[in-house]
């Protein structure tokens, strides 16, 4: 996937490392994430989706750049804020919408919804309703790879809030002791729900905790596609070489409230607006254009493509059948 760029290449990591088609596809998926979530938000307002939902708008570079080099054999574990991860890893937005609409054609056949969406075939082991729930599971997936002698890696997404769960500590410690091929990717968006990192976490950067597990830790600008891609790339190389886990912290920001019930009393309008000026998609797009990967028109076409895919996805979901009520206990156990 990575090209052997000459050492004198001063262009950003992503530009000098990935092929233009890959970069274009990355931009497309970032747009797809954004449009998907806008579409989900809109569908929610229209009553097509119920329950709650956690949007990652503003965090698209973190999801996409992290998944840039992952194949379907590589695994991810995701979080309650996982739409971006899901799409970045290759999921079909039609089946995602279908899941959100509670349809039988959804990824979880309507049983899971946004908080449990998974796509096992693309290596996405699932979102998680439990903060920190995916951390030990990711370590287990990495253990499988190591035991079976496969070279796939597991990326474990988690939030800044999750880093204070005991599961974080236990998972990182075991991953390190056993030198497992797992990359812990903390999406530090400054808040766990309403609680600022500074009020919940005794260190400044989550990556500062890596030393407690003797693993490399790095904090990067999570809205800078290249910075994330480069950090994760190094961690993947390390993991595939059998040298064990790494911790990568992507500093980013969520534009929307924590969930549908958030009144944003814990942060200022100014702060939100300031972060909105650092839109990771606009930034990546400009970067691609600046380096001649595509031009404005091509970029617009990519965005339009994403929009069309979202619209088709919503239509698919709407027209899909709901699960049969009588099937309420189906899938609890394996069917013989």
């Amino acid at each position, binding site marked *: 996937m990575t090209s052997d760029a000459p050492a004198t290449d001063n262009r950003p990591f992503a530009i000098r490392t990935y092929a233009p088609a890959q970069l274009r596809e990355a931009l497309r998926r970032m747009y797809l994430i954004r449009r998907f979530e806008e579409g989900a938000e809109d569908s929610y307002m229209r009553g097509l989706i*119920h*329950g*709650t939902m956690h949007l990652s708008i503003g965090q698209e570079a973190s999801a996409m750049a992290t998944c840039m080099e992952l194949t379907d054999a590589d695994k991810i574990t995701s979080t309650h804020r996982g739409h971006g991860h899901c799409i970045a890893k290759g999921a079909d937005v039609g089946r995602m919408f279908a*899941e959100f609409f*509670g*349809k039988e054609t959804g990824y*979880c056949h*309507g*049983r*899971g*919804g946004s*908080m*449990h969406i998974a796509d096992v075939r693309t290596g996405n082991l699932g979102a*998680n*309703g*439990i*903060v*920190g*729930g995916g951390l030990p599971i990711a370590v287990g997936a990495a253990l499988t790879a190591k035991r079976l002698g496969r070279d796939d890696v597991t990326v474990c997404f988690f939030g800044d*809030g*999750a880093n*204070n*769960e*005991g599961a974080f500590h236990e998972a990182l410690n075991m991953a390190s002791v056993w030198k497992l091929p797992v990359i812990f990717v903390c999406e530090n968006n400054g808040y*766990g*729900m*309403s*609680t600022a990192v500074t*009020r*919940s*976490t005794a260190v400044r950067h989550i990556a500062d905790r890596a030393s407690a597990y003797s693993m490399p830790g790095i904090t990067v600008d999570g809205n800078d596609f290249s910075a994330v891609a480069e950090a994760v790339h190094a961690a993947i190389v390390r993991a595939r070489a059998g040298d064990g886990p790494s911790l990568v912290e992507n500093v980013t920001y969520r534009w929307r409230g924590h969930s549908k*019930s*958030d*009144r944003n*009393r*814990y942060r200022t309008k100014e702060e939100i607006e300031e972060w909105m000026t650092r839109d990771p998609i606009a930034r990546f797009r400009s970067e691609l254009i600046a380096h001649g990967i595509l031009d404005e028109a091509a970029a617009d076409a990519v965005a339009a493509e994403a929009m069309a895919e979202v619209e088709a996805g919503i239509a698919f979901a709407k027209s899909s059948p*709901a*699960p049969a*009520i009588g*099937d*309420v*206990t189906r899938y*609890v156990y394996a069917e013989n």
Partner: protein
Amino acid sequence: MNAMTETGLRVLSYSEAIREAMAIAMENDPTVILMGEDIGVYGGAFQVTLDLVDRFGPDRVMDTPISELGGAGVAVGAALTGLKPIYEFQFSDFAMLAMEQIVNQAAKLRYMLGGEASVPVVFRLPAGSGTGAAAQHSQSIEAWFGHVPGLKVLQPATPEDAKGMLLSALADPDPVMIFEHKLLYKMKGHVPEGSYLTPIGKALVRRSGTDLTIVAGSIMVHRALEAAERLAAEGISAEVIDLRSIRPIDAETILASVRKTGRLMVVYEGVKAFGVGAEISAMVAESDAFDHLDAPILRLGAADAPVPYNPDLERAAVPQVETIEAAARRLARREV
């Protein structure tokens, strides 16, 4: 906040009633503190603690990191040494992360120390389905705690009880768990002013009847009452008992009713097997009331499945007015 019923009685919502209980306790007793995730400016996931941080300050309304085991344990340690903490689990599902502190420590400390310690901690747990939040945010696990000597386990069904039970829990020298139903938070009802104690361990006959006894807890009380109302139109007279306390259970009130009606049905939201209904059924079946039974004891609990996301499946998974009505009718007619 000060709505009145037609009869001139003061009306509050269930969550306002709980909030009022906390405020009264905090005003009267400087050792009462609140702990939990996002209970400060956010007001808690269900807005139950709204504004309390403004009144009592962040030292007494403590936002905790996302650390349920540690948070509950800090509350236990604080209770052991002189504070009276009310720890809010954001969802009762997350109590699974703290079972060790609740069950191995809080519940057992007095006994293990031969009566030399007291742990007056109160755990508040928003429970139940109906919000589209799927399998990890919709559980009703109160029955587990009924199995744990050392705990008291309450389930208020009305605003009046929600306030009175919380005040009683705070006056109790032992750990008390209060399961609040998410769908009840907005329910309104008469709530007396000032401080009063709802006795722990006393069930309440909410409607008297002669043909069968329906024991229900939490939101199921209201569904059972509505079912009873409908059945009355067909000449079936159902007695509805609000269980209120899962540990201890008020055997006396239940047995007296069953001796009178000869028929018993238990309605609860937890999974049917090994749920609250099992204990009540067994308690009756081993009592002298056994000889008064004219029909099998019915249990109406949740389907044997995690709570599904799709709203129709979700609704089908737990007892509703119609299912209660139908089951009660069958029981009254001895069609079981």
